Protein backbone atom coordinates (compact mmCIF):
# COMPACT_ATOMS: atom_id res chain seq x y z
CA UNK A 1 0.00 0.00 0.00
CA UNK A 2 1.54 3.28 -1.04
CA UNK A 3 1.03 6.51 0.82
CA UNK A 4 0.84 9.82 -0.98
CA UNK A 5 3.24 9.63 -3.92
CA UNK A 6 5.50 6.63 -3.66
CA UNK A 7 6.21 5.97 0.01
CA UNK A 8 4.74 2.78 1.45
CA UNK A 9 3.34 2.68 4.97
CA UNK A 10 5.70 -0.26 5.58
CA UNK A 11 8.64 2.06 4.88
CA UNK A 12 7.45 4.41 7.64
CA UNK A 13 7.17 1.42 9.95
CA UNK A 14 10.68 0.34 8.97
CA UNK A 15 12.05 3.80 9.78
CA UNK A 16 10.34 3.74 13.16
CA UNK A 17 11.64 0.28 14.07
CA UNK A 18 15.15 1.10 12.84
CA UNK A 19 15.35 4.37 14.80
CA UNK A 20 13.98 2.79 17.99
CA UNK A 21 16.08 -0.35 17.55
CA UNK A 22 19.35 1.56 17.18
CA UNK A 23 18.63 3.69 20.27
CA UNK A 24 17.58 0.69 22.38
CA UNK A 25 20.60 -1.33 21.23
CA UNK A 26 22.96 1.54 22.04
CA UNK A 27 21.37 2.04 25.46
CA UNK A 28 21.57 -1.72 26.10
CA UNK A 29 25.28 -1.86 25.19
CA UNK A 30 25.97 1.18 27.40
CA UNK A 31 24.23 -0.52 30.32
CA UNK A 32 26.19 -3.72 29.68
CA UNK A 33 29.48 -1.80 29.87
CA UNK A 34 28.34 0.41 32.71
CA UNK A 35 25.73 -1.50 34.79
CA UNK A 36 23.25 0.72 36.66
CA UNK A 37 23.23 0.94 40.45
CA UNK A 38 19.64 -0.33 40.64
CA UNK A 39 19.24 -2.83 37.81
CA UNK A 40 15.85 -4.01 36.55
CA UNK A 41 14.63 -7.55 37.22
CA UNK A 42 16.38 -10.06 34.88
CA UNK A 43 18.97 -7.41 33.99
CA UNK A 44 21.42 -10.26 33.45
CA UNK A 45 19.51 -11.21 30.27
CA UNK A 46 20.36 -7.81 28.71
CA UNK A 47 17.02 -7.57 26.97
CA UNK A 48 17.90 -4.13 25.60
CA UNK A 49 20.71 -5.59 23.50
CA UNK A 50 18.85 -8.45 21.83
CA UNK A 51 15.49 -6.69 21.57
CA UNK A 52 17.23 -3.60 20.14
CA UNK A 53 19.11 -5.83 17.67
CA UNK A 54 15.90 -7.55 16.55
CA UNK A 55 14.12 -4.22 16.02
CA UNK A 56 17.14 -2.81 14.15
CA UNK A 57 17.33 -5.77 11.78
CA UNK A 58 13.57 -5.78 11.21
CA UNK A 59 13.52 -2.04 10.63
CA UNK A 60 16.47 -2.18 8.21
CA UNK A 61 14.79 -5.02 6.31
CA UNK A 62 11.55 -3.06 5.90
CA UNK A 63 13.41 0.14 4.96
CA UNK A 64 15.29 -1.70 2.22
CA UNK A 65 12.34 -3.69 0.95
CA UNK A 66 9.98 -0.72 0.77
CA UNK A 67 12.47 2.08 0.02
CA UNK A 68 10.86 4.82 -2.11
CA UNK A 69 13.27 4.37 -5.05
CA UNK A 70 12.33 0.68 -5.33
CA UNK A 71 8.62 1.46 -5.05
CA UNK A 72 8.87 4.09 -7.78
CA UNK A 73 10.58 1.58 -10.07
CA UNK A 74 7.67 -0.82 -9.55
Amino acid sequence: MKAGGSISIWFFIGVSLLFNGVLILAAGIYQYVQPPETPTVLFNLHAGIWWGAILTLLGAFYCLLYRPSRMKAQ
Partner: protein
Amino acid sequence: MTALLAFATNNRLVHLHTVDLAIIVFYFVLVLAIGFYLKERANTGEDFFMAGREMTAWIAGLSFLSANLGSLELMGWAGSAYQYGILAAHWYWIGAIPAMLFLALVMMPFYYISKTHSVPGYLKLRFGESSRALSSVSFAFMTVLMSGINMYSMALVLKIVLGWNINFSIWVSAGTVAIYVALGGLRSAIFNEVLQFVLIWAGALLIPILGLIEAGGWSGLKARITANASAEYTHLWSTLGSAKDNPMGIHWTGIVFGLAAVISMGYWTTDFLVVQRVLTAKDMRAAKMAPIIGAAFKMFVPFIVILPGLLALAVLPMKLMPEAQAIATGGHSYNEVLPLMLARYCGPGLLGLGITALIAGFMSGMAGNVSAFTTVWTYDIYRAFIRKDASDHHYVNMGRWCTVLGVAISIGTAYLVMDFKSIMDYVQALFSFFIAPLFATVILGMLWKRASPAGGFWGLLAGTASSVAMWAWVKVDPSALRYIALSPYAKDMAENMYRALWSCIICFLITIIVSLLTKPKPEAELKGLVYGATDIPSESYVTVFHRPWFWATVVGVVFIALQIAYW
Protein backbone atom coordinates in the same frame (compact mmCIF):
# COMPACT_ATOMS: atom_id res chain seq x y z
CA MET B 1 10.08 19.10 22.79
CA THR B 2 12.38 16.82 24.82
CA ALA B 3 13.03 19.71 27.19
CA LEU B 4 9.29 20.36 27.38
CA LEU B 5 8.63 16.72 28.27
CA ALA B 6 11.34 16.81 30.92
CA PHE B 7 9.85 20.03 32.29
CA ALA B 8 6.40 18.48 32.46
CA THR B 9 7.78 15.58 34.48
CA ASN B 10 7.36 15.77 38.25
CA ASN B 11 6.50 12.98 40.69
CA ARG B 12 6.42 9.63 38.91
CA LEU B 13 6.23 5.87 39.05
CA VAL B 14 8.99 5.43 36.46
CA HIS B 15 11.94 7.62 35.52
CA LEU B 16 12.60 8.28 31.86
CA HIS B 17 16.09 8.84 30.46
CA THR B 18 17.07 11.00 27.51
CA VAL B 19 16.94 8.00 25.18
CA ASP B 20 13.35 7.27 26.29
CA LEU B 21 12.30 10.85 25.65
CA ALA B 22 13.98 10.75 22.24
CA ILE B 23 11.92 7.67 21.29
CA ILE B 24 8.69 9.33 22.41
CA VAL B 25 9.47 12.59 20.59
CA PHE B 26 10.40 10.69 17.41
CA TYR B 27 7.04 8.95 17.51
CA PHE B 28 5.20 12.28 17.59
CA VAL B 29 7.33 13.64 14.75
CA LEU B 30 6.67 10.55 12.61
CA VAL B 31 2.88 10.54 13.00
CA LEU B 32 2.76 14.23 12.12
CA ALA B 33 5.04 13.64 9.13
CA ILE B 34 2.65 10.95 7.85
CA GLY B 35 -0.27 13.38 8.22
CA PHE B 36 1.53 16.11 6.26
CA TYR B 37 2.69 13.63 3.62
CA LEU B 38 -0.85 12.34 3.04
CA LYS B 39 -2.46 15.76 2.80
CA GLU B 40 -2.14 15.71 -1.00
CA ARG B 41 -4.25 12.53 -1.09
CA ALA B 42 -7.22 13.93 0.82
CA ASN B 43 -8.86 16.31 -1.62
CA THR B 44 -12.14 14.57 -2.43
CA GLY B 45 -14.86 13.31 -0.13
CA GLU B 46 -14.14 9.71 -1.09
CA ASP B 47 -10.45 10.25 -0.21
CA PHE B 48 -10.97 12.16 3.01
CA PHE B 49 -13.83 10.11 4.51
CA MET B 50 -13.28 6.67 2.95
CA ALA B 51 -9.50 6.68 2.28
CA GLY B 52 -10.27 6.30 -1.44
CA ARG B 53 -11.66 2.78 -0.80
CA GLU B 54 -8.30 1.36 -1.87
CA MET B 55 -6.87 -0.28 1.24
CA THR B 56 -5.47 -3.79 1.08
CA ALA B 57 -6.90 -6.46 3.38
CA TRP B 58 -3.80 -6.24 5.60
CA ILE B 59 -3.95 -2.47 6.06
CA ALA B 60 -7.72 -2.46 6.63
CA GLY B 61 -7.49 -5.50 8.95
CA LEU B 62 -4.69 -4.14 11.15
CA SER B 63 -6.36 -0.73 11.29
CA PHE B 64 -9.71 -2.41 12.17
CA LEU B 65 -8.00 -3.98 15.18
CA SER B 66 -5.81 -1.02 16.10
CA ALA B 67 -8.76 1.40 16.31
CA ASN B 68 -10.09 -0.84 19.08
CA LEU B 69 -6.72 -1.31 20.79
CA GLY B 70 -6.77 1.98 22.69
CA SER B 71 -4.66 2.61 25.76
CA LEU B 72 -7.66 2.08 28.04
CA GLU B 73 -8.11 -1.27 26.36
CA LEU B 74 -4.47 -2.13 27.07
CA MET B 75 -4.23 -0.87 30.62
CA GLY B 76 -7.83 -1.49 31.62
CA TRP B 77 -7.85 -5.15 30.61
CA ALA B 78 -4.38 -5.78 32.05
CA GLY B 79 -5.85 -4.45 35.31
CA SER B 80 -8.95 -6.62 34.85
CA ALA B 81 -6.75 -9.68 34.37
CA TYR B 82 -5.10 -8.90 37.71
CA GLN B 83 -8.54 -8.48 39.27
CA TYR B 84 -10.48 -11.33 37.61
CA GLY B 85 -7.77 -13.65 36.28
CA ILE B 86 -7.88 -15.25 32.84
CA LEU B 87 -11.66 -14.67 32.65
CA ALA B 88 -10.73 -11.26 31.22
CA ALA B 89 -9.51 -13.10 28.09
CA HIS B 90 -13.16 -13.80 27.22
CA TRP B 91 -13.35 -10.20 25.94
CA TYR B 92 -10.61 -11.03 23.41
CA TRP B 93 -11.69 -14.52 22.45
CA ILE B 94 -15.37 -15.45 22.59
CA GLY B 95 -16.15 -11.75 23.04
CA ALA B 96 -14.53 -10.85 19.71
CA ILE B 97 -13.50 -13.68 17.37
CA PRO B 98 -16.95 -15.13 16.46
CA ALA B 99 -18.29 -11.60 15.87
CA MET B 100 -15.35 -10.62 13.67
CA LEU B 101 -15.75 -13.76 11.58
CA PHE B 102 -19.51 -13.17 11.36
CA LEU B 103 -18.87 -9.62 10.14
CA ALA B 104 -16.47 -10.93 7.49
CA LEU B 105 -18.54 -13.78 6.10
CA VAL B 106 -22.17 -12.70 6.63
CA MET B 107 -22.48 -8.93 6.99
CA MET B 108 -19.59 -7.49 4.99
CA PRO B 109 -21.11 -8.31 1.58
CA PHE B 110 -24.15 -6.10 2.35
CA TYR B 111 -22.13 -3.23 3.77
CA TYR B 112 -19.79 -3.39 0.79
CA ILE B 113 -22.27 -3.94 -2.05
CA SER B 114 -24.56 -1.17 -0.77
CA LYS B 115 -21.53 1.19 -1.05
CA THR B 116 -22.61 2.86 2.15
CA HIS B 117 -20.13 5.21 3.80
CA SER B 118 -21.33 4.43 7.35
CA VAL B 119 -23.54 2.18 9.47
CA PRO B 120 -26.19 4.92 9.88
CA GLY B 121 -25.92 5.27 6.09
CA TYR B 122 -26.87 1.59 5.72
CA LEU B 123 -29.85 2.10 8.05
CA LYS B 124 -31.01 4.96 5.84
CA LEU B 125 -30.87 2.75 2.74
CA ARG B 126 -32.59 -0.15 4.49
CA PHE B 127 -35.08 1.46 6.89
CA GLY B 128 -35.23 5.14 5.98
CA GLU B 129 -34.31 8.52 7.34
CA SER B 130 -35.76 8.18 10.87
CA SER B 131 -33.61 5.15 11.77
CA ARG B 132 -30.54 6.89 10.37
CA ALA B 133 -31.29 10.04 12.37
CA LEU B 134 -31.66 8.10 15.63
CA SER B 135 -28.45 6.10 15.20
CA SER B 136 -26.27 8.88 13.73
CA VAL B 137 -27.10 11.48 16.38
CA SER B 138 -26.58 9.02 19.23
CA PHE B 139 -23.36 7.69 17.67
CA ALA B 140 -21.86 11.14 17.00
CA PHE B 141 -22.73 12.35 20.47
CA MET B 142 -21.42 9.29 22.27
CA THR B 143 -18.25 8.98 20.18
CA VAL B 144 -16.83 12.38 21.04
CA LEU B 145 -17.81 12.01 24.69
CA MET B 146 -16.11 8.63 24.88
CA SER B 147 -13.07 10.08 23.18
CA GLY B 148 -12.88 12.77 25.89
CA ILE B 149 -13.24 10.23 28.67
CA ASN B 150 -10.46 8.13 27.19
CA MET B 151 -8.34 11.24 26.89
CA TYR B 152 -8.81 12.13 30.54
CA SER B 153 -8.11 8.57 31.69
CA MET B 154 -4.92 8.45 29.64
CA ALA B 155 -3.76 11.82 30.95
CA LEU B 156 -4.43 10.62 34.50
CA VAL B 157 -2.33 7.51 33.95
CA LEU B 158 0.50 9.55 32.41
CA LYS B 159 0.37 11.80 35.46
CA ILE B 160 0.57 8.88 37.87
CA VAL B 161 3.17 6.93 35.89
CA LEU B 162 5.37 9.67 34.48
CA GLY B 163 4.39 12.66 36.58
CA TRP B 164 3.30 14.53 33.44
CA ASN B 165 0.99 17.48 33.90
CA ILE B 166 -2.59 16.50 32.92
CA ASN B 167 -3.11 19.61 30.78
CA PHE B 168 0.15 18.97 28.95
CA SER B 169 -0.78 15.35 28.15
CA ILE B 170 -4.29 16.26 26.97
CA TRP B 171 -3.30 19.16 24.71
CA VAL B 172 -0.19 17.63 23.13
CA SER B 173 -1.74 14.27 22.31
CA ALA B 174 -5.13 15.69 21.25
CA GLY B 175 -3.44 18.39 19.16
CA THR B 176 -1.32 15.81 17.38
CA VAL B 177 -4.34 13.65 16.54
CA ALA B 178 -6.29 16.70 15.33
CA ILE B 179 -3.46 17.73 13.01
CA TYR B 180 -2.81 14.39 11.36
CA VAL B 181 -6.48 13.45 10.92
CA ALA B 182 -7.52 16.93 9.70
CA LEU B 183 -4.69 16.92 7.17
CA GLY B 184 -4.83 13.41 5.77
CA GLY B 185 -8.36 12.32 6.69
CA LEU B 186 -9.22 8.67 7.20
CA ARG B 187 -6.19 7.52 5.17
CA SER B 188 -3.87 9.28 7.60
CA ALA B 189 -5.75 7.83 10.59
CA ILE B 190 -5.52 4.33 9.11
CA PHE B 191 -1.82 4.53 8.21
CA ASN B 192 -0.98 5.82 11.66
CA GLU B 193 -3.10 3.07 13.23
CA VAL B 194 -1.01 0.45 11.42
CA LEU B 195 2.19 2.13 12.66
CA GLN B 196 0.72 2.32 16.16
CA PHE B 197 -0.25 -1.36 16.01
CA VAL B 198 3.36 -2.36 15.27
CA LEU B 199 4.70 -0.08 18.02
CA ILE B 200 2.23 -1.46 20.55
CA TRP B 201 3.55 -4.97 19.91
CA ALA B 202 7.20 -3.87 19.81
CA GLY B 203 6.79 -2.02 23.09
CA ALA B 204 4.66 -4.47 25.02
CA LEU B 205 5.88 -7.89 23.89
CA LEU B 206 8.92 -8.00 26.16
CA ILE B 207 6.81 -7.96 29.34
CA PRO B 208 5.19 -11.41 28.85
CA ILE B 209 8.46 -12.88 27.54
CA LEU B 210 10.54 -11.74 30.52
CA GLY B 211 7.63 -12.31 32.91
CA LEU B 212 7.28 -15.94 31.89
CA ILE B 213 11.03 -16.44 32.29
CA GLU B 214 10.86 -15.00 35.82
CA ALA B 215 7.72 -16.97 36.77
CA GLY B 216 9.12 -20.26 35.48
CA GLY B 217 6.88 -20.71 32.45
CA TRP B 218 3.10 -21.28 32.40
CA SER B 219 3.19 -24.01 35.05
CA GLY B 220 5.29 -21.83 37.34
CA LEU B 221 2.91 -18.94 36.76
CA LYS B 222 -0.11 -21.09 37.68
CA ALA B 223 1.60 -22.32 40.84
CA ARG B 224 2.43 -18.78 41.95
CA ILE B 225 -1.08 -17.49 41.23
CA THR B 226 -2.56 -20.39 43.19
CA ALA B 227 -0.32 -19.47 46.11
CA ASN B 228 -0.92 -15.68 45.89
CA ALA B 229 -4.62 -15.63 44.92
CA SER B 230 -6.55 -18.72 43.86
CA ALA B 231 -6.41 -21.50 41.26
CA GLU B 232 -9.70 -20.14 39.85
CA TYR B 233 -7.77 -17.27 38.29
CA THR B 234 -6.25 -19.49 35.62
CA HIS B 235 -9.43 -21.19 34.35
CA LEU B 236 -11.40 -19.81 31.45
CA TRP B 237 -14.63 -21.84 31.59
CA SER B 238 -14.56 -24.39 34.39
CA THR B 239 -15.54 -21.88 37.10
CA LEU B 240 -18.48 -20.35 35.22
CA GLY B 241 -21.06 -22.95 36.36
CA SER B 242 -22.18 -20.58 39.13
CA ALA B 243 -21.72 -16.83 39.63
CA LYS B 244 -20.35 -17.43 43.12
CA ASP B 245 -17.52 -19.70 41.93
CA ASN B 246 -15.50 -17.13 39.98
CA PRO B 247 -13.90 -13.74 40.71
CA MET B 248 -16.13 -11.95 38.16
CA GLY B 249 -19.42 -13.14 39.67
CA ILE B 250 -20.86 -14.19 36.34
CA HIS B 251 -22.58 -17.29 34.97
CA TRP B 252 -21.54 -18.83 31.64
CA THR B 253 -24.84 -17.78 30.07
CA GLY B 254 -23.88 -14.14 30.65
CA ILE B 255 -20.61 -14.69 28.77
CA VAL B 256 -22.09 -16.72 25.91
CA PHE B 257 -25.41 -14.93 25.36
CA GLY B 258 -24.71 -11.47 26.80
CA LEU B 259 -21.09 -10.92 25.80
CA ALA B 260 -20.57 -13.14 22.75
CA ALA B 261 -24.02 -13.11 21.15
CA VAL B 262 -25.01 -9.52 21.81
CA ILE B 263 -22.38 -7.06 23.08
CA SER B 264 -19.55 -8.43 20.97
CA MET B 265 -21.73 -8.86 17.90
CA GLY B 266 -23.07 -5.35 18.36
CA TYR B 267 -19.68 -3.77 18.81
CA TRP B 268 -17.68 -5.56 16.11
CA THR B 269 -20.38 -5.57 13.44
CA THR B 270 -22.26 -2.28 13.91
CA ASP B 271 -20.01 0.15 15.79
CA PHE B 272 -18.91 2.44 13.01
CA LEU B 273 -15.63 3.19 14.81
CA VAL B 274 -14.33 -0.23 13.72
CA VAL B 275 -16.56 -1.01 10.72
CA GLN B 276 -15.40 2.18 8.96
CA ARG B 277 -11.90 0.71 8.60
CA VAL B 278 -13.19 -2.32 6.72
CA LEU B 279 -15.37 -0.21 4.43
CA THR B 280 -12.16 1.28 3.00
CA ALA B 281 -11.09 -2.07 1.51
CA LYS B 282 -10.27 -2.02 -2.20
CA ASP B 283 -12.59 -4.88 -3.19
CA MET B 284 -15.08 -7.36 -1.74
CA ARG B 285 -12.51 -10.08 -1.04
CA ALA B 286 -10.26 -7.60 0.81
CA ALA B 287 -13.30 -6.35 2.76
CA LYS B 288 -14.06 -9.92 3.86
CA MET B 289 -10.43 -10.80 4.59
CA ALA B 290 -9.77 -7.66 6.69
CA PRO B 291 -11.87 -8.71 9.73
CA ILE B 292 -10.42 -12.24 9.48
CA ILE B 293 -6.87 -10.84 9.59
CA GLY B 294 -7.98 -8.64 12.48
CA ALA B 295 -9.42 -11.71 14.26
CA ALA B 296 -6.19 -13.67 13.78
CA PHE B 297 -4.20 -10.93 15.52
CA LYS B 298 -6.90 -10.29 18.11
CA MET B 299 -6.53 -13.87 19.34
CA PHE B 300 -2.96 -13.13 20.37
CA VAL B 301 -3.54 -9.72 21.99
CA PRO B 302 -4.13 -11.44 25.39
CA PHE B 303 -0.43 -12.32 25.24
CA ILE B 304 0.47 -8.63 25.71
CA VAL B 305 -2.56 -7.58 27.77
CA ILE B 306 -4.01 -10.44 29.86
CA LEU B 307 -0.76 -12.32 30.50
CA PRO B 308 0.99 -9.25 32.05
CA GLY B 309 -1.98 -8.93 34.44
CA LEU B 310 -1.63 -12.59 35.44
CA LEU B 311 2.14 -12.23 35.72
CA ALA B 312 1.66 -9.23 38.01
CA LEU B 313 -0.46 -11.44 40.29
CA ALA B 314 2.40 -13.91 40.36
CA VAL B 315 5.53 -11.76 40.68
CA LEU B 316 4.72 -8.28 42.02
CA PRO B 317 5.60 -7.93 45.70
CA MET B 318 2.73 -5.49 46.42
CA LYS B 319 -1.06 -5.91 46.23
CA LEU B 320 -2.87 -3.71 43.72
CA MET B 321 -6.25 -2.16 44.58
CA PRO B 322 -9.18 -0.19 43.12
CA GLU B 323 -8.47 3.38 41.96
CA ALA B 324 -10.22 5.16 44.85
CA GLN B 325 -8.49 3.02 47.47
CA ALA B 326 -5.12 3.53 45.78
CA ILE B 327 -5.55 7.31 45.85
CA ALA B 328 -6.62 7.23 49.50
CA THR B 329 -3.80 4.97 50.68
CA GLY B 330 -1.02 5.94 48.29
CA GLY B 331 -0.91 2.40 46.88
CA HIS B 332 -1.02 1.23 43.29
CA SER B 333 -4.28 0.68 41.38
CA TYR B 334 -5.19 -2.20 39.04
CA ASN B 335 -4.78 0.14 36.07
CA GLU B 336 -1.07 0.52 36.85
CA VAL B 337 -0.30 -3.13 36.06
CA LEU B 338 1.33 -2.49 32.68
CA PRO B 339 3.44 0.50 33.78
CA LEU B 340 4.54 -1.41 36.90
CA MET B 341 5.58 -4.39 34.81
CA LEU B 342 7.34 -2.09 32.34
CA ALA B 343 9.29 -0.49 35.17
CA ARG B 344 10.12 -3.96 36.52
CA TYR B 345 11.76 -5.32 33.37
CA CYS B 346 12.59 -2.43 31.06
CA GLY B 347 15.69 -0.29 31.26
CA PRO B 348 16.46 2.88 29.28
CA GLY B 349 15.22 2.74 25.71
CA LEU B 350 12.89 -0.19 26.30
CA LEU B 351 10.99 1.91 28.79
CA GLY B 352 10.61 4.69 26.23
CA LEU B 353 9.30 2.21 23.68
CA GLY B 354 6.85 0.78 26.23
CA ILE B 355 5.52 4.24 27.10
CA THR B 356 5.32 5.02 23.38
CA ALA B 357 3.19 1.87 23.00
CA LEU B 358 0.75 3.21 25.61
CA ILE B 359 0.60 6.64 23.98
CA ALA B 360 0.22 5.04 20.53
CA GLY B 361 -2.69 2.99 21.86
CA PHE B 362 -4.36 6.12 23.14
CA MET B 363 -3.86 8.03 19.91
CA SER B 364 -5.09 5.21 17.68
CA GLY B 365 -8.25 4.93 19.75
CA MET B 366 -8.81 8.66 19.69
CA ALA B 367 -8.14 8.99 15.96
CA GLY B 368 -10.63 6.16 15.39
CA ASN B 369 -13.31 7.99 17.37
CA VAL B 370 -12.64 11.33 15.73
CA SER B 371 -12.55 10.07 12.13
CA ALA B 372 -15.76 8.07 12.65
CA PHE B 373 -17.43 11.10 14.23
CA THR B 374 -16.32 13.28 11.31
CA THR B 375 -17.83 10.96 8.72
CA VAL B 376 -21.13 10.46 10.53
CA TRP B 377 -21.50 14.16 11.27
CA THR B 378 -20.68 15.27 7.72
CA TYR B 379 -22.57 12.61 5.74
CA ASP B 380 -25.36 11.48 8.06
CA ILE B 381 -26.23 14.69 9.89
CA TYR B 382 -24.89 17.77 8.07
CA ARG B 383 -25.50 16.60 4.50
CA ALA B 384 -28.72 14.75 5.36
CA PHE B 385 -30.45 17.40 7.46
CA ILE B 386 -28.61 20.72 7.27
CA ARG B 387 -27.12 21.30 3.81
CA LYS B 388 -28.03 18.76 1.15
CA ASP B 389 -26.64 20.19 -2.08
CA ALA B 390 -23.18 21.55 -1.34
CA SER B 391 -20.11 20.66 -3.41
CA ASP B 392 -17.78 17.80 -2.59
CA HIS B 393 -15.09 20.35 -1.74
CA HIS B 394 -17.44 21.94 0.81
CA TYR B 395 -18.01 18.60 2.57
CA VAL B 396 -14.26 17.90 2.69
CA ASN B 397 -13.70 21.28 4.33
CA MET B 398 -16.55 20.53 6.71
CA GLY B 399 -14.79 17.22 7.50
CA ARG B 400 -11.51 18.99 8.30
CA TRP B 401 -13.20 21.52 10.58
CA CYS B 402 -15.31 18.81 12.11
CA THR B 403 -12.14 16.90 13.01
CA VAL B 404 -10.86 19.91 14.92
CA LEU B 405 -14.32 20.43 16.45
CA GLY B 406 -14.54 16.76 17.47
CA VAL B 407 -11.16 16.97 19.20
CA ALA B 408 -12.20 20.24 20.88
CA ILE B 409 -15.41 18.66 22.23
CA SER B 410 -13.35 15.68 23.41
CA ILE B 411 -11.01 18.01 25.27
CA GLY B 412 -14.03 19.77 26.80
CA THR B 413 -15.42 16.41 27.93
CA ALA B 414 -12.04 15.52 29.44
CA TYR B 415 -12.18 18.66 31.60
CA LEU B 416 -15.82 18.04 32.46
CA VAL B 417 -14.95 14.54 33.66
CA MET B 418 -12.15 16.04 35.76
CA ASP B 419 -14.71 18.04 37.77
CA PHE B 420 -17.63 15.59 37.68
CA LYS B 421 -16.18 12.08 37.72
CA SER B 422 -19.59 10.39 37.89
CA ILE B 423 -20.15 11.55 34.29
CA MET B 424 -17.76 8.80 33.26
CA ASP B 425 -20.15 6.11 34.52
CA TYR B 426 -23.16 7.76 32.89
CA VAL B 427 -21.56 8.22 29.47
CA GLN B 428 -20.17 4.69 29.38
CA ALA B 429 -23.62 3.41 30.24
CA LEU B 430 -25.16 5.64 27.55
CA PHE B 431 -22.82 4.21 24.96
CA SER B 432 -23.85 0.68 25.83
CA PHE B 433 -27.53 1.62 25.44
CA PHE B 434 -27.20 1.93 21.65
CA ILE B 435 -24.86 -0.88 20.64
CA ALA B 436 -26.85 -3.96 21.67
CA PRO B 437 -30.20 -2.96 20.10
CA LEU B 438 -28.45 -1.65 16.98
CA PHE B 439 -27.13 -5.13 16.27
CA ALA B 440 -30.65 -6.57 16.30
CA THR B 441 -31.86 -3.83 13.93
CA VAL B 442 -28.99 -4.25 11.45
CA ILE B 443 -28.99 -8.04 11.41
CA LEU B 444 -32.77 -8.22 10.89
CA GLY B 445 -32.41 -5.63 8.17
CA MET B 446 -29.76 -7.69 6.40
CA LEU B 447 -31.27 -11.14 6.76
CA TRP B 448 -35.07 -10.61 6.74
CA LYS B 449 -36.73 -9.03 3.73
CA ARG B 450 -40.00 -8.53 5.64
CA ALA B 451 -38.41 -6.13 8.17
CA SER B 452 -40.17 -2.82 7.50
CA PRO B 453 -38.94 0.78 7.95
CA ALA B 454 -41.35 1.29 10.87
CA GLY B 455 -40.23 -2.00 12.42
CA GLY B 456 -36.56 -0.98 12.23
CA PHE B 457 -37.15 2.41 13.84
CA TRP B 458 -39.49 1.32 16.65
CA GLY B 459 -37.43 -1.77 17.41
CA LEU B 460 -34.27 0.34 17.79
CA LEU B 461 -36.08 2.89 19.94
CA ALA B 462 -37.70 0.23 22.15
CA GLY B 463 -34.39 -1.63 22.61
CA THR B 464 -32.60 1.55 23.61
CA ALA B 465 -35.39 2.69 25.92
CA SER B 466 -35.56 -0.70 27.66
CA SER B 467 -31.78 -0.64 28.20
CA VAL B 468 -32.03 2.82 29.78
CA ALA B 469 -34.94 1.65 31.95
CA MET B 470 -33.03 -1.41 33.24
CA TRP B 471 -29.98 0.72 34.01
CA ALA B 472 -32.12 3.26 35.90
CA TRP B 473 -33.87 0.46 37.81
CA VAL B 474 -30.57 -0.86 39.17
CA LYS B 475 -29.39 2.70 39.96
CA VAL B 476 -32.52 3.37 42.01
CA ASP B 477 -32.68 -0.09 43.55
CA PRO B 478 -29.33 -1.99 43.45
CA SER B 479 -31.07 -5.20 44.57
CA ALA B 480 -32.79 -5.27 41.15
CA LEU B 481 -29.52 -6.58 39.75
CA ARG B 482 -30.49 -10.12 40.84
CA TYR B 483 -33.50 -10.02 38.51
CA ILE B 484 -31.69 -8.58 35.51
CA ALA B 485 -28.61 -10.80 35.85
CA LEU B 486 -30.61 -13.83 37.06
CA SER B 487 -28.43 -14.43 40.13
CA PRO B 488 -28.16 -13.03 43.67
CA TYR B 489 -24.36 -13.35 43.34
CA ALA B 490 -24.16 -11.20 40.19
CA LYS B 491 -21.73 -8.27 40.10
CA ASP B 492 -21.49 -5.11 37.95
CA MET B 493 -19.93 -6.87 34.96
CA ALA B 494 -22.83 -9.34 34.84
CA GLU B 495 -25.33 -6.46 34.79
CA ASN B 496 -23.84 -5.10 31.56
CA MET B 497 -23.98 -8.51 29.88
CA TYR B 498 -27.60 -9.25 30.77
CA ARG B 499 -28.86 -5.70 30.14
CA ALA B 500 -27.42 -5.95 26.64
CA LEU B 501 -29.02 -9.35 26.14
CA TRP B 502 -32.51 -8.21 27.23
CA SER B 503 -32.41 -4.96 25.22
CA CYS B 504 -31.33 -6.85 22.11
CA ILE B 505 -34.14 -9.38 22.56
CA ILE B 506 -36.67 -6.57 23.05
CA CYS B 507 -35.43 -4.78 19.93
CA PHE B 508 -35.62 -8.05 18.01
CA LEU B 509 -39.19 -8.80 19.11
CA ILE B 510 -40.53 -5.26 18.59
CA THR B 511 -38.94 -5.08 15.14
CA ILE B 512 -40.60 -8.36 14.15
CA ILE B 513 -44.02 -7.47 15.58
CA VAL B 514 -44.12 -3.95 14.09
CA SER B 515 -42.80 -5.23 10.76
CA LEU B 516 -45.56 -7.83 10.54
CA LEU B 517 -48.13 -5.09 11.18
CA THR B 518 -46.72 -2.53 8.74
CA LYS B 519 -45.88 -2.32 5.07
CA PRO B 520 -42.43 -3.60 4.01
CA LYS B 521 -40.27 -2.02 1.33
CA PRO B 522 -40.79 -3.34 -2.20
CA GLU B 523 -38.24 -6.04 -3.06
CA ALA B 524 -36.78 -3.93 -5.87
CA GLU B 525 -35.64 -1.38 -3.27
CA LEU B 526 -33.90 -4.07 -1.21
CA LYS B 527 -31.39 -5.01 -3.89
CA GLY B 528 -27.85 -4.93 -2.49
CA LEU B 529 -29.16 -4.55 1.07
CA VAL B 530 -30.80 -7.82 2.11
CA TYR B 531 -30.03 -11.52 1.87
CA GLY B 532 -32.17 -13.08 -0.85
CA ALA B 533 -32.41 -9.82 -2.80
CA THR B 534 -28.68 -9.40 -3.39
CA ASP B 535 -26.32 -11.06 -5.84
CA ILE B 536 -23.21 -11.86 -3.83
CA PRO B 537 -20.19 -12.30 -6.13
CA SER B 538 -18.81 -15.83 -6.36
CA GLU B 539 -15.26 -16.51 -5.16
CA SER B 540 -14.77 -19.51 -7.40
CA TYR B 541 -12.20 -17.62 -9.46
CA VAL B 542 -9.61 -17.76 -6.64
CA THR B 543 -7.89 -20.77 -5.09
CA VAL B 544 -9.06 -22.23 -1.79
CA PHE B 545 -6.11 -20.57 -0.01
CA HIS B 546 -7.31 -17.14 -1.12
CA ARG B 547 -10.91 -17.62 -0.02
CA PRO B 548 -12.14 -15.84 3.13
CA TRP B 549 -14.07 -18.86 4.45
CA PHE B 550 -10.88 -20.98 4.41
CA TRP B 551 -8.99 -18.52 6.64
CA ALA B 552 -12.07 -17.97 8.80
CA THR B 553 -12.10 -21.74 9.41
CA VAL B 554 -8.40 -21.70 10.34
CA VAL B 555 -8.98 -18.84 12.81
CA GLY B 556 -12.06 -20.64 14.17
CA VAL B 557 -10.11 -23.85 14.80
CA VAL B 558 -7.32 -21.99 16.64
CA PHE B 559 -9.95 -20.12 18.66
CA ILE B 560 -11.58 -23.39 19.77
CA ALA B 561 -8.18 -24.90 20.59
CA LEU B 562 -7.42 -21.92 22.87
CA GLN B 563 -10.73 -22.40 24.72
CA ILE B 564 -9.93 -26.06 25.35
CA ALA B 565 -6.30 -25.40 26.30
CA TYR B 566 -7.24 -22.88 29.00
CA TRP B 567 -10.57 -24.48 30.00
